């Protein structure tokens, strides 16, 4: 027996979600249509609204309903500092620390050489333009300490330094409360290599 075309179409559409195969898509569709039709209606309208209203902030490239997002238009941030992160969640984490008061640029990804994700996909041209507004003095690279995040940081820093800008990279090392005995040897090796003098 075949499912009605509209149901088939819904299942196909749900499969665009990451990690959702045919089986889980079918389960989701049954759930939405049978158990939670109100939830389904709200999901449908939320999706439509988000698609219509959410774009990218012209300054930080984060998702925004306005041409310039609230964080970028707040007057109380230091415009001479620009922190580059991979994803919006990284920005939220940094904000939670209450230690950084500059501006941001969200790449919405990272260079991933073996997946074919290059400078175009992560809007490096927009970052270069943003960093050269004449007000930004230091760019802080807060991409992940994965091989892809490191490659991204390297190439972004080369491009920015070639344009006479000051670039720094967030530090890595032992975690807060970290005991050497229990830390992984990768972190420990890096911490040893990037040791600093005590002033």
């Amino acid at each position, binding site marked *: 027996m075949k499912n009605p075309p509209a149901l088939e179409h819904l299942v196909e559409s749900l499969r665009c979600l*990451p*990690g*959702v*195969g045919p089986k*889980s898509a079918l389960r989701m569709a049954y759930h939405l249509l049978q158990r939670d039709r109100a939830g389904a209606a709200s999901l449908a309208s939320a999706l439509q609204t988000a698609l219509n209203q959410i774009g990218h902030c012209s300054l930080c490239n984060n998702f925004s309903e306005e041409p310039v997002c609230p964080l970028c238009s707040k007057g109380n941030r230091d415009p001479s500092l620009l922190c580059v992160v991979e994803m919006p969640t990284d920005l939220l984490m940094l904000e939670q620390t209450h230690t950084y008061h500059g501006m941001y640029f969200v790449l919405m990804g990272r*260079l991933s*050489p*073996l*997946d*074919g994700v*290059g*400078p*175009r996909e992560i809007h*490096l*041209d927009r970052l*270069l333009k943003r960093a050269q507004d004449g007000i930004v003095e230091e760019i802080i690279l807060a991409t992940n300490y*994965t*091989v892809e995040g*490191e*490659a991204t940081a*390297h*190439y972004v820093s*080369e*491009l920015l330094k070639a344009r006479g800008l000051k670039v720094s990279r967030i530090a890595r090392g032992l975690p807060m409360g970290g005991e050497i005995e229990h830390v*992984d*040897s*990768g972190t420990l*090796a*890096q911490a040893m*290599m990037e040791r600093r003098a005590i002033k």
Partner: protein
Amino acid sequence: MAAGSIARQDQQPVFVLHTYPFKETSLVVEFFTRDFGRVAAVAKGARRPRSAMRGMLQAFQPLQATWSGKSELRNLHSLEWGEGLLLLNGEALMCGFYLNELLLRLLPREDAHEALFSYYTSTLRALAAGGEVAPTLRRFELKMLQELGYALPLLEDARGEAVAPALEYLYVPERGALREGEGQSGVQLRGKTLLDMAQEDYSDALTQVQSKQLMRTLMSHYLGDKPLYTRQLLMDLQEL
């Protein structure tokens, strides 16, 4: 399948070549293993925030992996750090991605290449140590082609005569060095370049240029039409 037929391999020396997402919380890991060649395995739950494997599934680090299964996708059970960590930075890091892309494209699955594994390890060490990357890459490319059965004749020309340093040749994939006038399309180079490559001596500037052209042509010959992502990425970066 009987339980006894599940081949379990304990603490095998491996490198991660690449990972990609699999189902909701897992990863498929492409390993380069010392004793089994290229092996793919599922790292279950490796994308969960608290996964113990998550931070270790990084390319360019010597690891020890334990897996089981006989199908094309093994099950990865555990990972440990191997001997001596490698810290690749900047340009060396991109060279590492290039090596991994070559291995992913040219190394067939489940085909053991112990010598190539050991050469890959020492190449990563050379890259991590810093210094000029071009000679290191040329040596690896040559060694890899050799190990995969595409060894290039460097000391003799296509007729079987000794390569003369001062003569100009046309190097044609699968045929070797042709004397001028013997062929039409190929990489133009002088005999000295081939002899230098055989000696692993890349100190001469012209040898560097010509060996790069030669290896690029040979690599495209063996890779086919699909270009290398790592090369495309470097070209795109130059345009910015």
